[in-house]
């Protein structure tokens, strides 16, 4: 087997059909089958903001080698309706297969196949199979899964156990019926008229993989960190984190509240954090817009809390189910006034886990809000990752007194022996004694306040200045604590890439391809957006011959930040703001262009074959 360079030993499957056909669920079961067999997977779910009607697709990349993102190529297209074939036929690689039900449509050479004669037609009577087994229409997706495995020459074992697990809580006949349907689909496709040229090599024991989407990774990180309160109002792409927390809340000891709105969610976080509970909320840009006033309250009251800002294209309601990185400046500047904040942007699932537990430590040690900046591409899509490093999780609560008598902490007392919650200190952090601690009388205030938290006194200019400066001093401390940028590739490179957040995933994939071809390309991933790591980024750019900034917004928010913080010129830019994530192909092609070796992408954005399979 050989594949279009530079793709690896992999197969790409797309399942498409009308909303309500269980496309995502089917795709995810398939991903689980491959992951359990030791393959690496990455999936991309694309769907409009509709429950019924509209076109949904699920794209699954399965590889025998480590991968970091989705790709645009497709080798098997499962069309649960005719529009799927029409919309996606151009994505099929030569030799790829179209699996369809002849009862839905018989592919028309021009309209459905776009004139292509290099694809393999695999008719599978999905409806008849389901009817024969006495099933219902939605079970066609199970028949299609069986057919996909059959066409790939794979056995049914994994799917069987996955089906059994999925229906464990139902009558045993249901699982048996579904397995029979999958088996029939598999047998049909085994007799396909053409051989499949992309057979997957046997998976090497890939070790202990976890198959999770970004929100599950965020949720696990929060749970590991000892979160005790989570509040949210549903908003894509953060909603599934609320579901995850709600599912595990009772057993884990987390009070989880679906609130009346985002204003309540953020204000609730403040109240529970006041009581010493590790507290978090998450939302998209629209919800964060409502949280902004309370976010500022967290700043002035020095309240430790974690806010997930998982962005989608905006402004206002924007494109709810698509992705973008256009809330970077919003995260940096949200709220009136000035106060220290930390903005972390995990780049993949493992980082979503790690940065979330770190965010709680940073919030506690700095006594200030921490934003976890994500996006739909990370939140929604599942990938196999090495098992998240739960052993590494630490809990550091900083200057916290949860029990006892505050008099035992002289550094917490004012000259007259009273507890001073906002005592002015050198590093800007005061001792935080919780309500309930003997002598810890304090007011947490949305107004500027004096060392005890009282508002009226702080209208004194000197008090305002002292408190404001005290808070802002924490930024220096923060700079020494936050995750440093990640660097990839050789020190000396022809081209140097800069990106943040989930762009890491396709960028690393492109980098892997470029390195395999012997190109010296390096990259820096800005993991902490605030305080901005100006020194590291500047050093990287100074060493770079040609730089390319890649970001998912139209106005160059990261680029502007670099100019402002590093006073450094930016040479080239790749921006995307059509709701789609960067593909590795696009990044690869852009770099190749800059290297003077242009490559071609087909209409679907996939690399055009350079060598044919045989």
């Amino acid at each position, binding site marked *: 087997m050989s594949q279009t360079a530079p793709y690896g030993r992999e197969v790409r499957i797309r399942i498409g059909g009308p909303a309500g056909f269980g496309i995502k669920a089917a795709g995810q079961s398939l991903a689980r089958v491959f992951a359990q067999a030791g393959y690496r997977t990455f999936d991309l779910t694309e769907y409009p903001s509709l429950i019924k009607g509209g076109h949904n697709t699920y794209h699954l990349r399965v590889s025998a080698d480590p991968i970091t993102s989705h790709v645009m190529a497709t080798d098997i297209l499962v069309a649960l309706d005719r529009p799927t074939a029409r919309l996606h036929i151009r994505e099929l690689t030569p030799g790829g297969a179209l699996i369809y039900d002849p009862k839905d449509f018989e592919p028309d050479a021009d309209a459905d196949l776009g004139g292509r004669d290099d694809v393999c037609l695999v008719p599978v009577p999905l409806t008849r199979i389901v009817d024969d087994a006495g099933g219902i229409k939605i079970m066609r997706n199970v028949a299609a899964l069986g057919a996909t495995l059959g066409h790939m020459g794979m056995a049914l074992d994994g799917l069987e156990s996955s089906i059994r697990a999925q229906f464990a809580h139902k009558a045993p006949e249901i699982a048996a019926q579904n397995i029979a349907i999958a088996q029939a689909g598999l047998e049909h496709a085994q007799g396909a008229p053409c051989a499949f040229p992309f057979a997957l090599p046997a998976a090497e024991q890939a070790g202990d993989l*976890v198959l*999770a989407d970004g929100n*599950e990774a965020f949720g*696990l990180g929060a*749970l*590991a*960190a*000892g*979160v*005790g*309160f989570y*509040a949210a109002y549903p908003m894509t792409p953060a909603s599934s984190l609320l579901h995850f927390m709600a599912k*595990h*809340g*009772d057993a*884990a*000891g987390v*009070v*989880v*509240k679906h*609130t*009346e*709105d985002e*204003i*309540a*969610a953020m*204000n*609730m976080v*403040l*109240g*529970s954090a*006041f*009581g*010493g*509970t*590790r*507290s978090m909320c998450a939302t998209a840009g629209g919800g964060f817009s409502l949280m902004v*006033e*309370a976010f500022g*309250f967290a700043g002035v009251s020095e309240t430790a809390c974690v806010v997930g800002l998982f962005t989608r294209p905006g402004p206002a309601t924007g494109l709810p189910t698509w992705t973008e990185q256009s809330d970077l400046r919003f995260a940096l500047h949200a709220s009136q006034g000035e106060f220290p904040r930390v903005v972390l942007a995990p780049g993949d699932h493992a980082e979503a886990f790690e940065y979330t537990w770190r965010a*709680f430590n940073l919030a506690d040690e700095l006594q200030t809000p921490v934003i976890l900046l994500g996006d739909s591409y990370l939140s929604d899509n599942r990938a196999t990752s090495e*098992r*998240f490093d*739960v052993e590494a*999780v630490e*809990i550091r*609560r900083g200057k916290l007194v949860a029990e006892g008598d505050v008099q035992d902490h002289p550094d917490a007392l004012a000259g007259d022996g009273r507890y001073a919650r906002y005592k002015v200190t050198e590093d800007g952090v005061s001792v935080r004694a919780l*309500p*309930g601690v*003997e002598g*810890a*009388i304090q*007011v*947490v205030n*949305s107004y500027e306040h004096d060392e005890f*938290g*009282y*508002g*009226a*006194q702080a209208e004194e200019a000197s008090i305002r200045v002292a408190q404001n400066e005290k808070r802002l001093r924490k930024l220096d401390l923060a700079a020494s604590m936050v995750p440093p940028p990640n660097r990839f590739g050789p020190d000396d490179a022809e081209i140097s890439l800069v990106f943040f957040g989930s762009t890491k995933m396709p960028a690393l994939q492109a980098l892997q391809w470029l390195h395999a071809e012997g190109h010296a390309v390096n990259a820096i991933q800005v993991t902490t957006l605030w305080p901005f790591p100006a020194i590291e980024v500047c050093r990287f750019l100074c060493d770079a011959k040609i730089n390319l900034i890649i970001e998912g917004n139209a106005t160059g928010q990261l680029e502007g930040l670099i100019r402002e913080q590093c006073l450094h010129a930016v040479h080239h830019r790749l921006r995307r703001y059509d709701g789609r994530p960067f593909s590795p192909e696009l990044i690869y092609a852009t770099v190749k262009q800059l290297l003077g070796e242009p490559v071609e992408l087909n209409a679907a954005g996939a690399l055009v074959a350079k060598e044919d399979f045989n």
Partner: protein
Amino acid sequence: MPEAKAFTNTNKPTWCPGCGNHGMFLALQRALAELGWEKREFAMFWGIGCHGNGADFYDVQGFHALHGRSLPPASAYALTRPDQHVVVEMGDGDGYGLGLGHFVHACRRNVALTVIAHNNQIYGLTTGQASPTSDHLMPTVSTPQGVLEEPVNPIGIALAEGATFIARGFAGDIAHLTSLYIEALTHDGFALVDVFQPCVTWNKINTFAWFRERVYKLEESDWDATDRVKAFDLSLTAFHELTCAPDTCKMPIGVYFRETGKPTYGQSTPASAEPGWRRALHPRDVSGIMAKL
């Protein structure tokens, strides 16, 4: 038992002389003293408004929230600090204007909170604009032609939304108010005490004298405080109009409604059994959940 004045600090109250807030301040301190609550056993939450400035004068553990937003943080605090009592003070603009949504949902939830509303039917702190409880046609600086809306009926809303203790007090009767507070503070669930709190600076209509001529005590009538529907009916008839004469317009104070035995939100939330900060003593083991993904 702490004395009432144990709950004041050395900061001087900034309320106007004669303001209804002074009486409410005193009544709450007396109630707290009577109940023998230690300062470390409870926390107070305030919204923004003249009432909220009390955050500076009480010597208690407190949280001076954003305008209209005292109920959400207080609720979350109550759910994650089951070892603490929670007292919320809010203004009428604050709690029934900006925060009305939170108020409705707080009533539904039956979180164990005592909510005291400073109802002066005007915006005090921002100098006399109409409030959601200002009377129909009352002229103010923001409504020179008179308020065109009907006033919000907080007692009726609380009744409609399932609140389990609902009372109305008057800042001019401190002894009566103290007794209402004690009942509210010991109620196991969401308790509302809406208090007529004359603003002597901006509301020249609903004055102490105006109320004195009109209020009567429910417990001095044959009022049955266990009937939600009757209480709702009463909340409608007790609406006052600018022009109503003392003999035709009677305004009940006292306990409109109480219901005991309904589980609180916290009691129905297993995770609420322990103070939330105890959940973060060690990393939580998530390997089991991870293995199931």
